[in-house]
């Protein structure tokens, strides 16, 4: 019998390199990936790098520098910097590409390399495939001794980034809000502290200390994480809105002014509600695991939802099949949202500013806006994975729920007029994810029988 798959502590994929440092992700992975990226990029172009505050980031940075310099690239090092700021700097400094060192919403023992091309955009699947091929072949193009690159440190990246945000958002108008922010010991504090200085905004920061080894709590942008520290402080501190960022600031989660932790599923509908009437584009790109409220909100503004498989790469690939002006926003049900005016970069800070602008322009509170949406109830569960039985499981479910509309883009999703279910294999953990959503009350009965069915294949 084939043994159970081990915990996925190392992942080398189109999204880059990600793993638990020491036991899985090693210096040699970093060196090889850095040399592969240095080989992949056009010769001679500069590369922007930055990292989140994880202690292992220092080691990854050294390896990344060595590989890039050896391939003849000059490197511009931003030090500890949020991922959206790194992407922004690639464009502003006209670099050939960039790398963000940081494991985003994963716990502290993880780290990762994310690769960006010119203009700070994510690599397409074709490009990422080429990078992976170079990595696996280990045929790197190293420069001769005279052609090795040099490193320069660069300051001012956050100010350049804020300059561009200030062109889209009216910071002066947002000064009236008292905004509580859980920085989760990550990089968002660097931006928000500077915003307070420059624009007189009132971002009140908790867990704002940059930390490399132990974060105040898991840095996931979920309702559960919001409920830990952020939500209970909303009323005592009389905050108008609350936001939680992951360590590298590309994702955001919310708390309402009445102390309610908001479901991570609502970030995308909220932003769609704000952006669709204002953006030229009418398409919303979302994955097939996120709430059907999105379709309802989109319909209100004459928009349309394009559903894609789960994961960043699927969203990137979907974006490339449309003209940028056709799209209002794209994102996942995890608080990761990208907008055309910010070059389709997952940016938690820009998402937060959009939501604050919405509060300003509508004159309503977050809980008032959310109360105006029809109620959807989502239930999420997970079952240990037995990989070889997945095809049989999906076939079984397909027959069992034959009366619904079937979508096999990523696992199995079945839709009925007022509810849906989705069963898929996780990309990050050895589990099967099970999700049911229903308009109105929770689909408890459906969820329980589905879970039982999935478990019978474990």
């Amino acid at each position, binding site marked *: 019998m084939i043994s159970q798959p081990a915990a996925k502590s190392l992942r080398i994929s189109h999204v880059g390199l990600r793993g638990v*440092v*020491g*036991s899985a992700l090693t210096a*040699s992975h970093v060196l090889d990936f850095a040399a592969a990226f240095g080989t992949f990029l056009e010769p001679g172009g500069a590369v922007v790098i930055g990292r989140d505050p994880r202690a*292992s980031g*220092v080691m990854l940075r050294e*390896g990344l520098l060595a590989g890039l310099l050896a391939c003849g690239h000059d490197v511009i090092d931003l030090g500890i910097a949020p991922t959206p700021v790194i992407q922004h700097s690639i464009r502003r400094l006209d670099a050939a590409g960039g790398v963000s060192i940081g494991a985003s919403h994963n716990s502290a023992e993880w780290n990762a390399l994310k690769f960006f091309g010119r203009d700070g955009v994510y690599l397409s699947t074709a490009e990422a495939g080429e990078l992976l091929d170079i990595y696996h072949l280990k045929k790197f193009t190293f420069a*001769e*001794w005279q052609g090795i690159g040099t490193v320069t440190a660069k300051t001012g990246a956050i100010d350049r980034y804020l300059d561009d945000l200030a062109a889209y958002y009216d910071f002066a108008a947002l000064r009236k809000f008292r905004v509580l922010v859980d920085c989760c010991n990550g990089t968002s504090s660097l931006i928000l502290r500077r915003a307070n200085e420059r624009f007189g905004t009132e971002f009140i920061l908790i867990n704002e200390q940059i930390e490399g080894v132990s974060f105040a709590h898991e840095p996931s942008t979920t309702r559960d994480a919001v409920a830990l520290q952020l939500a209970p402080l909303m009323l005592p501190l009389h905050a108008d809105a609350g936001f939680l960022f992951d360590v590298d600031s590309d994702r955001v989660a919310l708390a309402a002014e009445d102390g309610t932790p908001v479901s991570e599923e609502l970030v995308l509908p909220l932003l769609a509600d704000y952006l669709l009437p204002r953006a030229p584009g009418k398409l919303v790109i979302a994955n097939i695991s996120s709430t059907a409220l999105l379709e309802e909100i989109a319909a209100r503004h004459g928009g349309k939802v394009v559903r894609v498989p789960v994961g960043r790469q699927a969203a990137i690939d979907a974006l490339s099949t449309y003209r940028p002006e056709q799209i209002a926003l794209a994102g996942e049900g995890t608080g990761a949202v990208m907008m055309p005016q910010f070059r389709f970069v997952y940016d938690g800070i820009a998402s937060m500013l959009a939501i604050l602008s919405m509060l300003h322009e509508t004159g309503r509170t977050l809980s008032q806006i959310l109360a105006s949406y029809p109620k959807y109830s989502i239930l999420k569960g997970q079952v240990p994975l037995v990989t070889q039985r997945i095809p049989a499981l999906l076939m079984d479910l397909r027959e069992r729920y034959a009366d619904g509309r079937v979508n096999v883009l990523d696992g199995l999703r079945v839709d009925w007029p007022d509810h849906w279910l989705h069963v898929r294999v996780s990309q990050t953990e050895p589990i099967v994810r099970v999700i049911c959503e229903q308009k109105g009350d929770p689909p408890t009965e459906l969820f329980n029988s589905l879970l039982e069915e999935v478990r019978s294949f474990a």
Partner: protein
Amino acid sequence: MTTRREHLLKIGVSGIRGVVGDFLTPGLACAFAQAFGTYVGAGRVVVGRDTRSSGDMLYHAVACGLLAAGCEVVDIGILPTPTIQIYVGATRARGGIAITASHNPPEYNALKLFNSDGLFFNSYERGELLDLYHQSDFRRATNAEIRTATSDYATPPRLHIDRVLQHVDAERVRRRHFKVALDAVNGAGSVMTPGFLRDTLGCDLRAISIDPTKPFPRIAEPRPDTLGALSELVRSSGCEIGFAQDPDGDRLAVADETGRLLDNDDVLALAVDAALRRLPGDVVVNLMTSSVIDAVAATYGRRVYRTPVGEANVVEMMQGVKAVIGGEGSNGGIIFPAVHLCRDSYTGMAFLLERMAETGETISALAARLPRFYRKLGKVSFEHGRLGSLMQALEESFPGVETDRSDGLKLILPDAWIHVRASNTEPLLRMAAEARSEAEVEELYARVLKLFE
């Protein structure tokens, strides 16, 4: 000049050395550093380098490997190798790495590895480290165990110069305001030697090639045939002495006031004389070094020990016999353990200047006073498999003569010697002969050559 393939990368007990690019890659340097970090343990490891264009890149690769092994990295930047070694020993770090290919051409680089005393590992330790590297059996620190990289650029030069000054009467040298020429080959010496000669020793300095950002302007090894510019500088500016360093500042070559390059064995002999004059103890040199050392030692009633060629061999023997000075004449290495047990051009420079100040004599006059020996070097090619019979024939043609087989074959005749050794890299025999007169050495050399034809 073409480079033979087998020279492009060498990983062995002396560490890792090769041509940067496709051969000495950042991945190899990182893995070697991680093996080193695993071997010395999770403490502070000092990293310094010479001025090669690949130095910064390799620094980052080495830092990555050390951090991954759980070490704390102390970056001391561009510095001479002896300065790096002294700092490692003085700060009681777990170990140190110098990123330098010493006198090799600019396309090469290498890692030199030091223990917590700032000394070479002994041959057994080097074997263990190499095994660790090959087994890829590295310590892999977790996020919570990974430490940081810090830097200290100011302390190491001060430490080194202070050590040298403890053994030299700097005031006496300063009073003379020697006019001194320097060629630092744009190497690591560029950052330290001008200040040492001008400010510490009060010299009127005329320096060339002291820009650490520029490539080496000459062949990196400081030999008479590569130091034309220094000779010219000495002559044109009327200097009393000229010094040349290699890229990592451990080797020294010396020009006299006429611009003539001194024999490196004579430079070592002058340093030996200076050391024996002030401290008790014996002398260690390699077996190719001139008998002038024995002659100098004899005047102080000291003993000379001989070792196989290689700095590590000389150092190991020096430790064993607690020698007061040692070195390898042919390559300009002066090792004075009271400063540090390593090749140190700074001690060499200070000793010679002090001797000139003390005696009031020119450097050429001091060299002329040394006992005169004549040496002839050469090489012949041979076929593999014939080495043994050649050596045998050589020994038999000098019956009853004292021999030393620790590194090739050395025949020790009264007042003369012959040394023959197979090259490690090519089917070549390297031959050396030394005697008291030019005629004698020619005769001896011809006799050996005839045997090999």
